[in-house]
């Protein structure tokens, strides 16, 4: 809200500069966003008013805050514009049908109105506050609203049929053309001001075009009313129509403000010679509010704040805010809640008033006392932390991407129509289709990161992300939020350097990262199995399982090379590998507690074995056979060469293994090692269709 500095000076005496006033207001809770200047170079404060303080949506409200902060009186003398001549009561009648939604309605009549431009000083202030001057009648209503916070509305009296105001809910099917020229459909939830026949205004939001004040208007019916905040808020939301009036009403105003508003306006009508104010007014206020009293316990105030103020100090601070407060004999403070402070309803509210005027900055800085709480931890925090750390140690960069995706995400990785991943949580009111649902897989996010980098000539990327996917649950209100570790690799290894051979990242680099990760995080008995996935190369994709613990094997995730179609759509210059692992499953299998292994005391014997194996016998089958045949003496077996080429028959490849053999309690002899070798050779020949090179 914008308030001219000079206008404030009409209500409080001060010499402080606009900047100083801005700082004082900000530090007592009315934030000044900036100090600007209007056309004439006069200072205008731009304030942020929080929704609990509709009373501050006015010059008087801000002046009251300044007066409180400075400890000076508010110069405010309520005016009573009695009017003269014919009694308003004779000219108009008012009926409130729903006092719940419209607690109060005051009507006044101004006759012999000369519609014309308003005085320049008024126009200048309106403009400074961001309101366009229209004509003297409308400008007076806006001016008074800015000054005291009460929205007013001026009708052309002669266009109100029967000169009768009925405040009621709209009837189904009714509609109104509002001042902005829009035709708006109304319903039972919308409160309207109607004449005998039809709605003439949407209460508290906007007047109707038909009854608008025009240059020909000679008699004005002035409305100063009070409406239920939540009703106005709902209506304004429903109609997507926010006006200066609605944003004041929707926060809940003081019914007494309606009295002040109409009398300030009528005083201006008379003083500026715009018209003759008829005597008296019609005031329908069926259930007047009783004054609210509150008793404050100063001990509790001090304990909650961590300060030591006397009851007298507290009462004085409240008084400065125009909140009458008296210290009783028992030391408590009796507070009368002023009507304009509808936000004050519980003790904590008064605590804040005392604290902010005393000064938050004067409250000491202490440390929490008392016992430390029992230990609790987010269930996924440890696995997320350890997974992140391991991935970083493996040389991958961490990325963080948005969890909002759109259909692009599925298209990016070629998901078919029937893919269950397409069943996603959808946002009812998205900002854009690209961010209209929650992701069900991290792969599109990873691919998008790789693509963005590839497009920007960053060809070498090895990255991972730890994030959530959101899987709708049949019959559940909230989806299951699974923690996922995903990653992507592309480019050369090593990236760019001299003197060593460089090569493209391949499937086994990605697999090695996953193996190292699973070993480190403590998942045992994992294995890889070829599978097909619509986004992945049909011959280069694997599901990852673990046979760890009881029960059937558990699926941990998958890895693979992006299919040529996906890769081509993204314009990747090299092959791209991606993986996705379910951290929930991994957390349930991981046993990171390890027992230290002392170095062996006896030397090992190494034996190499090379063989030619048909390609349709899987490597895993061969390695399992070697391990099984070698038995307990086998400490480790590693593949150190794989070869296909002229020397190897078609459909076969040559595999060379190094076996490390060791006995726990003695040095192995050559004969013992050779026996193991023979056993292995015999086994792979028999079970793996292998031809062992001797």
């Amino acid at each position, binding site marked *: 809200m914008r308030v001219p500095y000079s206008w404030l000076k009409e209500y409080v005496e001060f010499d402080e500069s606009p900047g100083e006033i801005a700082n004082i207001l*900000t*530090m007592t*809770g009315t*934030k000044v966003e*900036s100090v600007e200047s209007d056309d004439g170079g006069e200072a205008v404060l731009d304030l942020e008013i*929080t*929704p*609990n*303080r509709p009373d501050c949506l006015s010059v008087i409200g801000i002046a009251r805050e300044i007066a409180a902060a400075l400890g000076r009186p508010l110069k405010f003398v309520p005016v009573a514009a009695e009017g003269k001549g014919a009694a308003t009561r004779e000219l108009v009648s008012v009926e409130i049908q729903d006092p719940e939604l419209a607690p109060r309605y005051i009507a006044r009549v101004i006759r012999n109105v000369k519609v014309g431009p308003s005085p320049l000083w008024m126009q200048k202030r309106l403009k400074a506050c961001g309101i366009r001057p229209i004509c003297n009648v409308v400008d007076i209503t806006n001016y008074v609203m800015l000054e005291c916070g009460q929205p007013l509305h001026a009708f052309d009296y002669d266009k109100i049929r029967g000169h009768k105001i009925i405040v009621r809910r709209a009837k189904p099917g009714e509609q109104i053309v509002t001042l902005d020229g829009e035709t708006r459909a109304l319903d039972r939830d919308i409160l309207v001001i109607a004449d005998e026949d039809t709605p003439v205004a949407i209460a508290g939001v906007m007047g109707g075009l038909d009854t608008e004040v025009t240059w020909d208007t000679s008699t004005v019916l002035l409305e100063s009313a009070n409406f239920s905040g*939540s009703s106005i808020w709902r209506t304004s939301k429903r109609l997507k129509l926010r006006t200066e009036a609605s944003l004041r009403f929707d926060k809940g105003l003081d019914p007494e403000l309606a009295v002040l508003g109409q009398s300030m306006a009528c005083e201006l009508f008379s003083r500026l010679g715009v018209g003759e104010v008829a005597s008296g007014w019609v005031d329908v206020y069926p259930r007047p509010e009783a004054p609210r009293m509150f008793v404050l316990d100063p001990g509790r105030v001090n*304990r*909650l*704040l*961590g300060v030591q103020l006397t009851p007298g100090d507290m009462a004085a601070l409240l008084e400065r805010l125009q909140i009458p407060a008296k210290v009783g004999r028992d030391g408590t403070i009796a507070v009368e809640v002023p009507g304009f402070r509808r936000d004050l309803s*519980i003790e*904590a509210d008064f*605590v*804040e008033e005392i604290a902010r005027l005393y000064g*938050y*900055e004067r*409250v*000491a*800085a202490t*440390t*929490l*006392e*008392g016992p*430390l*709480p029992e*230990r*609790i*931890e987010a269930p996924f*925090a440890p696995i997320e932390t350890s997974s992140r750390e391991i991935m*970083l140690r493996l*040389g*991958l*960069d*961490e990325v*963080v*991407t*948005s*969890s*909002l995706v759109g259909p692009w995400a599925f298209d990016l990785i070629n998901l078919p129509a029937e893919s269950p991943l397409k069943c996603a949580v*959808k*946002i*009812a*009111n*998205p900002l854009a289709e690209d961010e209209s649902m929650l992701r069900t897989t991290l792969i599109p996010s990873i691919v998008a990161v790789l693509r*963005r*980098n590839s497009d*920007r000539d960053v060809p070498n*990327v090895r*990255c991972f992300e730890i994030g959530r996917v*959101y899987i709708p649950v049949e019959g559940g*209100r909230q*989806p299951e*939020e699974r923690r996922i570790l995903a990653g992507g690799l592309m480019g050369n290894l*090593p990236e760019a350097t001299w*003197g*060593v051979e460089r090569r493209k990242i391949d499937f086994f680099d990605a697999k090695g990262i996953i193996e190292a990760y699973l070993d480190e995080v403590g998942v045992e008995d994992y294995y890889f199995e070829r599978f097909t996935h619509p986004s992945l190369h049909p011959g280069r994709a694997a599901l990852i399982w673990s046979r760890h613990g009881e029960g059937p094997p558990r699926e941990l995730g998958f890895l693979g090379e992006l299919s040529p179609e996906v890769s081509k759509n993204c314009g990747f210059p090299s092959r791209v590998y991606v993986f996705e692992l379910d951290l929930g499953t991994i957390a349930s299998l991981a046993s990171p507690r390890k027992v230290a292994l002392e170095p062996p005391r006896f030397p090992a014997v190494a034996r190499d074995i090379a063989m030619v194996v048909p390609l349709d016998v899987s490597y895993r089958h061969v390695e399992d056979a070697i391990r099984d045949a070698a038995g307990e003496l086998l400490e480790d077996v590693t593949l150190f060469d794989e070869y296909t080429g002229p020397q190897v028959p078609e459909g076969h490849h040559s595999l060379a293994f190094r076996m490390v053999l060791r006995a726990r309690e003695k040095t192995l002899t050559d004969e013992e090692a050779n026996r193991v070798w023979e056993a292995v050779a015999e086994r792979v020949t028999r079970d793996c269709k292998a031809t062992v090179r001797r």
Partner: protein
Amino acid sequence: MRQQVAAIQDAMAREVKAAGTTVQLDELRRKYLGRKGMVARLFDELSRLEPDERRESGRLLNELKARCEEMISRRRAEIEREETRQALSRETIDVTMPGRRPPLGRKHPISRVFDELKEIFLRMGFEAVDGPEVELDYYNFEALNIPHNHPARDIQDTFYVTDEVLLRTHTSPVQIRTMEGRRPPIRVIVPGRAYRSDATDASHSPVFHQLEGLAVDRGVRFSDLRGTLALWAKEFFGPDTKVRFRPHYFPFTEPSAEVDVTCVMCGGHGCRLCKMTGWLEVMGAGMVHPRVLENVGYDPRELSGFAFGMGVDRLVMLKYGVSDIRLLLENDMRFLKSI
């Protein structure tokens, strides 16, 4: 004899000095000290001498032999040193050529700041908890004293899934879930992701990150909140950092405050970043609203608490001098590797 010895010694000294390789030295050794070498031949002549002279000449010859051995071995050491020197000199490399760096994984700045924050608060006895991002209206709004049809809802533009289910607009619902699940004392932080349907620009992203803090116990004071956050600011931004509390409004705290820290750029003198105020707003905070305590079955006359919530993306931006929030989720590797 004496003259012969002197002559041999001189000749050998000359030749040893001239020898440039160990092979040449071996030859010299054979020539002088070998079984048929010059010294051996002189030894042969000893037998033809008188006993007195023989003893004296024997001593001279033994001395000669020892001296020759010494000359050769000294020269050998010299030559070997020289050969090594030359060999190493041939292996000289240009040390200004680039080193080969092993791949170094880098933590995303958002994770880094989260970790840093967690560490600071962990030391003050807070523990990290989390909760769902797709949240019920009740936890995100109602239980936090933000009723339906209330202008307080306007503060936060919300993504809805259904009327009752939404993407949490802050990490505060985890306050409620935590309090529902346990009795005080409570000291938790909630690092997490939240969503608002703000239009995207350099400082707004529909997906953003927050760190929430909550402490509830008997006798928790507003001054404890001041102390906790003052300590946090010094730990996070540096020992000279000050905090400033401004009164503000949040539906779920009362009293409420917005918290500023001295500008990281100018140290409080005023610059463009802080719009010449010397202060940067970094979070909202306050005493837990009594109605929030009541909503989880706590008695506000018995218990009190404070809560705070900071925008982690903004902290990242301040810490690393990032001017556009969108860079954080874009993951340009050149950007990520620069910090």
